[in-house]
C-alpha cells in the first residue's frame, strides 16, 4: 500500500532560520495521528512543508493529495459568504480558471457538508456560525477535494468541551478511510483518542501508539521539562 503521506529526511527553514531537520514520517489511511510539541517545535511548518507551501532544504515529501485545515483565524469570517460558498472555495482550482461551478461540484460540496453534519446550515452566512461550526466548515472545505491525508492545525483552540468532543468523533470517523494528522496542545485527549502520537521538536523525537510511549524521557526531551513536571503526571507517566 502506498503511504497517504510520506516525508523522508525533510529539512525546512523559516525566514532563514532552520526549523525542521531530518523529519521522517509515514501516515497511512486509517491512522488518526496526533502531532505533539511545544510552540516553535515546527508543527505548522511541518504541515506547510507537507502541502508544498514551503521550499524544502533537504528531503522529499510524497502524497497523493493533502487537505489542509488551517487555524480558524486564517479565514475571513466576516465575508458575506454562505457555508456552501465557503466550502466551494476549496474547489476553485478543480473548477478551473474562467469556469463556473457545475452540478457535480455542488454535489461534492453538499456531500462534504453532510459528512461534517452541517447539511442543514448550508445557506447560513459564515459569520453567524459558532466556533465549532466554523471549524467544521473548514474541515468540509478540505474534504471536498477527497484528500488522502487531512492535516488539522490546532482545531480545538478556543472551543468548549462539547464542541471538542463532537469534532473528535468527526475526526475519528474521517480517519476510517483517510489518514488524519492533528497538531494539538491537548496532550491527554490526544493520548486517549489518537491511534498514534508523533512527538516533534525540530525533528521527530519519538512516534508510535500511546501505549508504546511510556518512557518519560522522550516527553521531557520534546517539551523541555524536568522530571517533576505536571505534564508527566497528567499523562500518567510517573507516580503522582
Amino acid at each position, binding site marked *: 500500500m502506498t503511504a497517504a503521506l510520506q516525508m523522508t529526511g525533510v529539512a525546512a527553514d523559516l525566514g532563514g532560520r532552520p526549523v525542521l531537520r531530518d523529519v521522517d514520517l509515514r501516515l497511512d489511511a486509517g491512522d488518526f495521528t496526533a502531532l505533539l510539541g511545544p510552540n516553535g517545535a515546527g508543527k505548522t511548518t511541518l504541515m506547510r512543508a507537507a502541502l508544498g507551501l514551503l521550499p524544502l532544504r533537504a528531503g522529499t515529501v510524497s502524497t497523493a493529495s493533502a487537505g489542509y485545515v488551517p487555524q480558524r483565524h486564517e479565514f*475571513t469570517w466576516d465575508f458575506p459568504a454562505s457555508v456552501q460558498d465557503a466550502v466551494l472555495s476549496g474547489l476553485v482550482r478543480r473548477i478551473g480558471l474562467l469556469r463556473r461551478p457545475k452540478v457535480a461540484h455542488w454535489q461534492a460540496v453538499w456531500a462534504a457538508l453532510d459528512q461534517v453534519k452541517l447539511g442543514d446550515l448550508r445557506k447560513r452566512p459564515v459569520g453567524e456560525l459558532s466556533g465549532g461550526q466554523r471549524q467544521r466548515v473548514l474541515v468540509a472545505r478540505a474534504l471536498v477535494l477527497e484528500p488522502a491525508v487531512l492535516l488539522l492545525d490546532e482545531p480545538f483552540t478556543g472551543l468548549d468541551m462539547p464542541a471538542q468532543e463532537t469534532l473528535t468523533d468527526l475526526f475519528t470517523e474521517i480517519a476510517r478511510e483517510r489518514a488524519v494528522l492533528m497538531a494539538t496542545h491537548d496532550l491527554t485527549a490526544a493520548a486517549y483518542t489518537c491511534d498514534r502520537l508523533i512527538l516533534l521538536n525540530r525533528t521527530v523525537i519519538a512516534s508510535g501508539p500511546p501505549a508504546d510511549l511510556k518512557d518519560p524521557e522522550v516527553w521531557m526531551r520534546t517539551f523541555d521539562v524536568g522530571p517533576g513536571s505536571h505534564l508527566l503526571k497528567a499523562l500518567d507517566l510517573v507516580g503522582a
Partner: protein
Amino acid sequence: MSPWQFLADLTNPDLAFLPKALTIAVLSAIMCGVVGCYVVLRGMAFIGDAVAHAVFPGLAIAFLFSGSLVLGGTIAGVVTALLVTVFAQNRRLKEDSVIGIFFVAAFALGIVIISRAPGYAGSLQQFLFGSITGIPDRDLYVVGATTIAVLLTVFLLHKEFVAVTLDREMARALGLRVFWLDLMLYVLVTLAVVMAVQTIGNILVLALLVTPAATARLLTDRLAVMMALAPAIGAGCALVGLYLSWSWDLPVGGTVVLTLTGAFLIAQLAAPRHGLIARLAA
C-alpha cells in the same frame, strides 16, 4: 431646480458637456462600486487611496505633454501597484508602511511635475477636485470600453478573487497564483479610479470606491447581492450628486461624495438586520 429642468439641460445641445460628465460619472461609479466590493471585503481601502493618489504623476505628465490622461494615469497607477506588491513581499516591513511611502512619493512627484506646466494652479485644482467641463469625446469611448473590460474581468476571475480574500494561505495551498491575482485586482482598482478622477477628482475618488460597497455590505449578507447593490448605489448617487451640484452650483466631486455619505448614513441607521434602528428594536 426641478428634475425636469435638469433633464432639459441634459438634452440641451449647448450644454453638451453635461451628459458627457454624467455618463462618465455613472460608468466610473459602476466600475468603482463593483471593484470596491473586493476593496472593502479585503480591508484594503488604504491601497485604494494609495492607487488613487499614485495616478497623479501620470495625469500630470500626460497633461504637460497633452497626452491621454487616462493612459498616463493608468500607467502610473499600475507601476505604483507593482512596486507596492513587490516591496510588500519583504516581511520586515508591513504593507501599509510600504504603501505609505510610495503613494505620497508618487503624489509629490505629480505636484513637482505639474508645477512645470503653465497655468499650474487652475489645472491642479481641476485634478484634485474634479470638473465636469473639458472632457473630450474620445474619453467617453475610453471609459465605455474600460467599463466593459473591468466588469468582464471581474466576472471571469470572481471565484479566484473570492478564494484569495477568504483565505490567502489556503488559496496558495490550492495552487492559485496569489501574486498575479493581487496585481490584477490592483490594476482593476487603478482603472476604475482613473476613469473617475476627471469628474470626481483625485482626492475624493476613494469615496466612490469604498462608500457604495460599504453601504451595500450593511444591507446584505450575500456577496452577489452586494456586488449588484454597490454599483447601483454608486451610480444613483453620482446622478443625484450631479443634479444637486448643477442645481445649486456646487463642486461636483464634493456633492457626489456627500450624497454617497448620506446614503451610507441612512443604511447605517435603517439597514434591515444590522442597522441601528433594527438593533434597537430587537
